[in-house]
């Protein structure tokens, strides 16, 4: 039951893109077309889940026992960078169709702050391992949801009469803002759910 709250919170209320401000560069960069948005979203789900699990292990098996908490940033980013490259090679060898579909997005993900951000958030919020994994999947799904929604809007904007100065990223940002406003409507849903579970 707690996981349901966690998932709802991560996807809708604390959406990683629209409320936590993470992963905005690829959000605006890859939301121009629906097919790239879907590809990017799936790649992020894939990588974020693995990355969070691995960094969680690194944090709790290595950094904490060695009292090296302050090296978290550098350790995580190294692990993620290596992991992404590893995944890329792995997919290329063993799942060529998946590689063709997601391959071009993988290098983009290393510098996607949503991945590092989620990994760090899991640690900062003192989650346990299953929670961290569920949180990562949910966050990435939230990312994908927002990305796909925005891509749908932007595909329509392409053929609309947008004032010249607003064309491109500017209108994309404003659309993201309006979406974020809409997602505000979910605030409190988790509270009531928790209350419901609690009592």
């Amino acid at each position, binding site marked *: 039951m707690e996981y349901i709250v966690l998932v709802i919170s991560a996807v809708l209320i604390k959406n990683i893109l629209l409320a936590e401000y993470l992963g905005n560069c690829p959000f605006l960069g890859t939301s121009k077309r629906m097919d790239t948005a879907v590809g990017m979203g799936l790649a992020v789900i894939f990588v974020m889940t693995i990355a969070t699990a691995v960094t969680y292990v690194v944090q709790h098996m*290595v*950094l904490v026992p*060695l*009292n*090296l908490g302050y*090296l978290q940033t*550098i*350790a995580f980013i*190294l*692990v993620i*960078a*290596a992991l992404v*490259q*590893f995944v890329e*090679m*792995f997919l*290329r*060898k*063993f799942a060529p169709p998946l590689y063709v579909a997601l391959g071009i997005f993988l290098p983009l993900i290393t510098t996607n702050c949503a991945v590092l951000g989620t990994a760090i958030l899991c640690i900062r919020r003192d989650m346990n391992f299953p929670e961290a994994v569920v949180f990562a999947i949910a966050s990435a799904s939230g990312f994908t949801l927002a990305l796909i929604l925005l891509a749908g809007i932007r595909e329509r904007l*392409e*053929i*609309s*009469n*947008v004032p010249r100065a607003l064309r491109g990223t500017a209108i994309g940002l404003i659309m993201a803002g309006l979406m974020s406003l809409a997602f505000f409507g979910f605030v409190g849903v988790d509270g009531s759910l928790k209350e419901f579970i609690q009592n």
Partner: protein
Amino acid sequence: MLSAALFLLVLGLVASVALAIASRAFYVWEDPKVLAVTDALPGANCGGCGNPGCASAAEAIAAGLASANICVAGGFEVAQAVGEIMGQRVEEREPEFSWTSCSYGVGNAEPIFSYNGASDCHAAVMLYGGSKLCPVGCIGLGSCVKACQFGALAIGDDNLPVVDYSRCVGCGACVDACPKNIVALVSQTRRIISEYVTDECTAPCQRACPTGIHIPGYIREIRNGNYEEAVRIIKEKCPLPLVCGYICPAPCELSCRRNFVDEAVAIDPLKRFVADHEMTTGKHIDPYKCTDNEIKIALVGGGSEGLTAAYYLARLGYQPTILEAKPELGGILRYVIAEDRLPRNVLDHDIQGILEMGIEANTNVAMGRDFDVCSLLKDGYDAVVVTSGGFDSRKILKPEQERYDAAIPGLFIMLDLLTAFSQREEIHLGKHAVIANGGLKALELARKCRDMGAEIVTIVSDQPLSTLPVDFHDTKVLAEEGIEVRASATVAAMRGIGERMDRIALEDKDLTGDISKKRTIIDADTLIVPAGRLPEMAFVHAAGKPETEGERVRWQTIETFRTFPKGGGYGILSSPEPGRISDSSAVVKSILSGRRLARAIHQNFTDGTITPIPNLVWEAADILDVTEVNGVNPSERQCPTVSDVEGDSKTAWIFPEEYPGLDEPAARQEAERCLQCGLICYDKNT
């Protein structure tokens, strides 16, 4: 401190070793050539090469399915780099650029409704083909701009696309994106050989001009004071601007839309004004020239047609040589037109300008006397073009010549032949003679040919049998006589070895104007043309055979023009006047013939066939136009009008001594009168 350093050391080690192992374990073989080529390509994935992206283009190149220079975006440098990887030699491709023809934006063109829908050209076109009345008007919503991967296109302030030529790579994505076919890719070559078609934006004056000068374009430059640019625009289509400025009958002025309001713009005097300006500067303004090639072309005849053909061939990069029988170049312009109509310094200036394009000219050499088609082909020319134009053919034969077909093997002119028959001369016609057209006279001639020893005589007519004189109808009887009638057909080619013609290709003609391409080859020794002078013809080495057989050259003709507006002709001797691409009644018309000859030669050496031009703009073409002009204030024409017989305004027949031409203020003022017409648009605030 130690633990931190150790930790990072181990982490770095583990990560890099793991990756190193992984890159081994998960190694996927990739053609190093594909990788290298992918690196060399620009990576814009524009699709201009026809592959979905640069990576697949690289695969195609590496697999040998595509040539090293397929990347239009990367240009020569990329092609060279790719060629180096692939071990191929790369030849430079002519750059192509995006080009748009519409000049009246949505705000200025004639609207049929105002459009407020989705901002996309394709969407807008779905509604009655767009908001403009003009069928070839730019929608202005920028689908081409969105398609451009290189940022070379933008929609300008007047809602028309503007090309940034420094960025355009000629990939053609915009061309595919435009629903109105307004954006086109042009190379200099294509611009040089282009003909106007009905579905592009042309002004009425432009269409009326046989040479097709972009008249609104040069008048606009005169307005802005860019006289050099004006000359350059004129020279794009007309190599003799000054000559035309003096003697052109100016059919353009008859179709000027100003005639609906007051009087035509003085188009021709304006041309004379800028061309005079060029002459006073003493420097020739040279139009664009393509990269040189090594193909040598001989042009027989140095009149306006030969000069023009040479001019265009030189611009296309060929090496033309003019062979003129007279002591000086110029033909009718020099030897027929009165000097007080066309001062010779004017002619010399223009001819000098043409020769400067890289043309060799030999005078005092005559066809039939000093050379003939075979000798020229043997002397290393790749093509021989007969541009003898308006001159009577008989004069170019040697006086002591016994054979009348010495200049062009196997070709007789009906008049020559009839004269010879009447003088009871012996003429060897061979076994099979072909008479092209000629009406009833042809039948008489055919019988005479039989008498002279020809076993079979074929009469070819491009008309259907039913419209031929009744004498032709009983083909059976005629066949018994040895006379064969081929109606609805045309002579498509001649072929021969040395001084003998051996074959003629006939092509069935479809009355709907369609080319059926049904060819029949007949063994023929003689072709008789029922005309008083030689047609324009172009000869090349025979295709698919060794160039020579012993000492004798194999040769064949190529078509000089092919189009199918109704009634228009094709084949080497097309009607109404056999062999004429156009007539020589005015210098502008022979300029057109010259240009089309150059086009034919160029197409022959590049594509191998002469492609027809559908929707060609010609006199009887069906084209959208306006019948009245509104919102234009009358203004006075700045130069005298001379009326011709029908009372239409004309300026051409003014003697230069009487009229010195427009001075600069008058020219600028006259240029302001131009309505800058498009297909149906015009400037309403003039």
